[in-house]
């Protein structure tokens, strides 16, 4: 019995470690408005922002996430690494939120340029773009905790 409990403990520990270390190599970067005092977030915190579980930054500003279109390879990678789901599963999640009256999904835009523009124009904006995209002024790239 003791050995069994130990085994379960190590399996759970392994899964937790596995699930929190997948962000080491990412093909995207997470960005916020340059005026946002936040400069680093954990994977869980980014996840909460994009699933609208957390709706306010620490200073009370509304968090305004923005997504790329569902066929974007960058979105696919972000969804897999940060939300731990497929894009289909995330769409299903939002359909459940919509049709149960619980919430609306983030705005979707066509490309990295539109993401940058959205985040630049919204003080509470948070988005993600391809790692190779140059972000320019008015945007801050977040690091992962």
């Amino acid at each position, binding site marked *: 019995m003791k050995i069994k409990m130990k085994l379960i403990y190590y399996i*759970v520990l392994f*899964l*937790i470690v596995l*699930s*929190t270390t997948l962000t080491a190599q990412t093909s995207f970067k997470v960005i916020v408005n340059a005026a946002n005092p936040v400069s680093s977030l954990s994977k*869980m915190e980014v996840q*909460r922002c994009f699933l609208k*579980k*957390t*709706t*306010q930054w620490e200073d009370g500003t*509304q968090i305004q996430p923005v997504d790329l279109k*569902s066929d974007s390879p960058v979105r696919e990678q972000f969804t*897999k690494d940060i939300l*731990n*789901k*497929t*894009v*289909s*599963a995330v769409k*299903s*999640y939002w*359909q*459940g939120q*919509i*049709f*149960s*009256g*619980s*919430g*609306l999904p983030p705005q979707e835009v066509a490309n990295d340029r539109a993401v940058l523009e959205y985040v630049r124009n919204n003080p509470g904006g948070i988005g993600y773009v391809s790692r190779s995209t140059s972000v320019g002024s008015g945007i801050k790239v977040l690091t992962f905790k």
Partner: protein
Amino acid sequence: MLKNLLRNKILLLFLILLTTSIFAQGTLDNLSIHGFVSRGYLKTTNNNYLLADSKDGSLEYGEATLSFMAMPSSKLGIGAQLYARDFGSDDNFFVIIDWAYGDYRWYDYLGFRVGRFKNATSLYSKIRDIDITRVPILLPQSVYDESGRDLALAIDGVGLYGRIPVSGLGDFEYEASYGGYNIFNQRSKLFTEQYYTISSDIAAGMSGIPGIISANSIGESNAKAKVEDVMVVNLTWHTPLQGFKTGFSYNTSKFKWAFESNIQMLFPSPDPTNPTPVEVVQTIPVLGDFDIGTKTFFGEWQFNKFTLAGEYRKYVIEGITTMDITESDIRIPRESYYGMGAYQFNSWFALSGYYSVFYSNSDDKDGDLLVAAGKPDYYAWQKDLCFTARFDLTQNWIFKMEYHAINGAGQLSQDFNADGFEKDMGLFILKSTFHF
């Protein structure tokens, strides 16, 4: 129809709020409109199930929804959803206000809702009618029994909710609500099945009275049902293991019904020259007053393309049924559980399977009491093995195929199967949904 809708105070409240918010902003930009429409085909073997004529196959299985949501401010959300479905002889696309409420999220850890809103009585209770959000068409019937749907759709009342992150332990999410259920369909299968059973029992009892040749139930009239004092508490732990959540839901309510059972009795003729029996129809008032308590434990793990889920439920209904001047105490403890798995192969194809178990009396899982009462033991349970294939044909168009191998008759309707139940049956469903 419009007159009926406008009579509804909740819709009126919603319209006032919506109009006010649109005028306040001078824009419709924040108004989000979504909907879906579906049509299905359902066929069973051996027993009729869900629909009265399911053995013959039926296309009377579809639904339509239109939802409106607006965010007049960053913390305030309002919305409403119209919903209609065709489900055999039930509903026939009668339009209901599925939900309509105002939601003020003061902080992430404390929000308020007022109006008609969905209940968190189990893992998928808020989205039980929204099959585009999952792979299976029918959720496991042991927990999401279609015949009990009218008691679990939405609550008219007030609610609190929130989410509290705890460092290193994940997030704790809670919901608590209080109010009453609005039962849209007073002739729903949930009630008519009970009315039928009680009326049959009354008629059988009268048949045994000396001097009565026979007694038969000829239907019910003036049926009314309501559910009051509904209290729902739900606590969900989003664990540090990514995608894994587990929780507990507890809800209680008071369920009351009243109807008149019409019994046709035949008496021997008092006239020796005319032997034709004398027919008398007696109307017997029946009242029911019950307390319902439900405890549900649930867990779900979503990790990339996998979803695993399970729920365990204990359900007790107890109270008194009054038939004319006689009373009978009723206590029915029920137990149900299921395990489900789904895998998303790619963006257009997914498979799922579940095994669902229901016991109509958890004190008699093997059906010994039923056997003693002269009924088959398999009336005590229903075990359902289900497989579903989902095809996302386009971004907005879904097609599903589903098969159920069912053992036992614990959730079958006597009304649909007057000659009794077969032990094993199959259920096959096709369904196509367009959504936007």
